[in-house]
């Protein structure tokens, strides 16, 4: 392994096929997510990450249930989240759920913290969206203590106080799951990741390169400031979205109707314009390779690359074919190229094993 991880992340949205108008049921969508995870392991990818949402058209309200099931049916792939809502979930429950998952998955677990992008989730869970940053800061500070201290006394602004509380099960081997902090536009979260020496993930799909560059550069600078290593040793993850066909014109023609009906892309800049401005890559496997190699030029050597390949109503068969392309053609080349370019002092992606041995 090159020290860099490649994987897929799914939002877990349900959308109709633009041609037939038929959408999968919730049950079908969940089964397909599981199949994509199994396929990802089969073709040699390193990570499967699930989103967390608490409203239709999403099916991913309970990520540890889904990931626990996938853990039982896989041996190697790391299970992660994209993202775990650190704002509206009780940090005590996050500590318990993910420590539990860590045990069941033999350590193949990490998390990506996020604040969520659906306003009403805050009131639905008894929170105020104006406290978003404060919740992310306080809840995560508590979560860290729950995983690192056997007995916790705690009092804060947002949660009922704790006296003599022990979160169980304790993290596997005494090693808390590695944490990434995901944020698209909040510098406070890059600052948080840097402060703790945690990973920082920028889901740079939908966003122009210059913006992502500034967020990552902020995180790297502050990582060094807080004494965790040099800026180029900070732990960076990036998103990406791909759709591949042998012939790039076929990829564009097949992807376009899904793009045009997408609640995120539809009605905005054209597919071609979006591909120019954002990392969306629709084309041949070689084009995806070239595009992804550019990420390193723009953002420095990094540790984790996650691709979004499902969602927006894309046919399940086509999704599995994307994972085949990734596993068979794209990732092997990327592993080799990235490894060749990577200086020796740049750390690999942290894993349970490396953290257990104190290597990261």
């Amino acid at each position, binding site marked *: 392994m090159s020290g860099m991880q490649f994987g897929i992340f799914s939002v877990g949205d349900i959308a109709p096929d633009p041609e037939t108008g038929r959408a999968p049921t919730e049950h079908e969508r969940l089964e397909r997510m599981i199949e994509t995870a199994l396929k990802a392991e089969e073709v040699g990818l390193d990570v499967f990450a699930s989103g967390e949402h608490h409203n239709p058209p999403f099916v991913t309200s309970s990520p540890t249930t889904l990931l626990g099931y996938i853990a039982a049916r896989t041996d190697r792939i790391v299970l992660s989240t994209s993202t775990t809502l650190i704002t509206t979930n009780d940090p005590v429950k996050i500590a318990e759920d993910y420590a539990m998952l860590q045990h069941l998955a033999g350590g193949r677990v990490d998390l990506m913290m996020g604040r969520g992008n659906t306003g009403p989730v805050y009131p639905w869970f008894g929170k105020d969206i104006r406290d978003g*940053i*404060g919740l992310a*800061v*306080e809840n995560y*500070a508590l979560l860290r203590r729950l995983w690192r201290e056997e007995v916790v006394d705690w009092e*804060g*602004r*947002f949660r009922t106080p704790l006296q003599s509380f022990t979160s169980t099960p304790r993290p596997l081997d005494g090693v808390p799951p590695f944490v990434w902090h995901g944020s698209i*536009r909040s*510098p*406070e979260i*890059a*600052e*948080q990741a*840097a*402060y703790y020496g945690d990973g920082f993930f920028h889901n740079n799909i*939908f*966003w*122009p390169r*210059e*913006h992502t560059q*500034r*967020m990552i550069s*902020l995180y790297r600078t502050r990582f060094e400031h*807080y004494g965790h290593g040099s800026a180029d040793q900070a732990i960076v993850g990036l998103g990406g979205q791909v759709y591949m066909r042998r012939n790039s014109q076929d990829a564009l023609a097949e992807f376009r109707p899904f793009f045009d009906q997408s609640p*995120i*892309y*539809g*009605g*905005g*800049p054209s597919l071609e*314009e*979006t591909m120019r*401005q*954002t990392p969306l890559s629709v084309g041949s496997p070689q084009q995806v390779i070239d595009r992804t190699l550019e990420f390193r030029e723009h953002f420095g050597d990094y540790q984790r690359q996650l691709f979004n390949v499902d969602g927006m109503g894309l046919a399940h068969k086509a999704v599995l074919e994307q994972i085949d392309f990734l596993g068979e053609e794209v990732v092997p080349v990327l592993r080799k190229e990235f490894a060749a370019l990577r200086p020796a002092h740049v750390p690999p992606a942290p894993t349970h094993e490396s953290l257990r041995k104190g290597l990261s």
Partner: protein
Amino acid sequence: MTLAVVTAGLRRPSSTRLLADRLTSAVTEALGDTDVTVVEVRDHAHDLVNHLVSGYPSAELRTALDAVTGAAGLIAVTPTISGSYSGLFKTFFDVLDEGALAGMPVLIGASGGTARHSLVLEHAVRPLFTYLRADVVPTSVFAAPEDWGGAAAPDLLAHRIDRAAGELAARVRQRGDQPPPDPFSTPPFEDLLRAT
């Protein structure tokens, strides 16, 4: 000193631009050495809508937005449409980051098809800039068709333009060039922790 001018006329030539140009020359005359950037909102119409739905600006629009938020003072002129500012004018200010115009000296102007709209600046445009926490000068300048011709009219318009320009120039001089707000700045983490 840097001065930004946002003008949202739809026709070319446009009386909105005509008013914007008159205001600009009056302000630059009062200020002396001034670096002026004029943003014709029409040139960014499609990019503005794309920004609204995609969440990020094109490079060209980014340049225009930065020129406005980084200026020492702003002249904003809209045509009157359906009794208010034009939707396109509003969209330009809708896509600015929160707080981007806080404290910015602003001179507001509007053109209109009839003098009956002359309070549009007071009931629509001024509240918009108050919401954006801008420092709007007391004199606003509305130009009706008769202001561009007729016996005594030009003097009246010129008088208001000069008064408004003087007010803006005084504020710009007082405030000086300010670094544009940095959307990537954050308090140190210890402060964030303490705040909870």
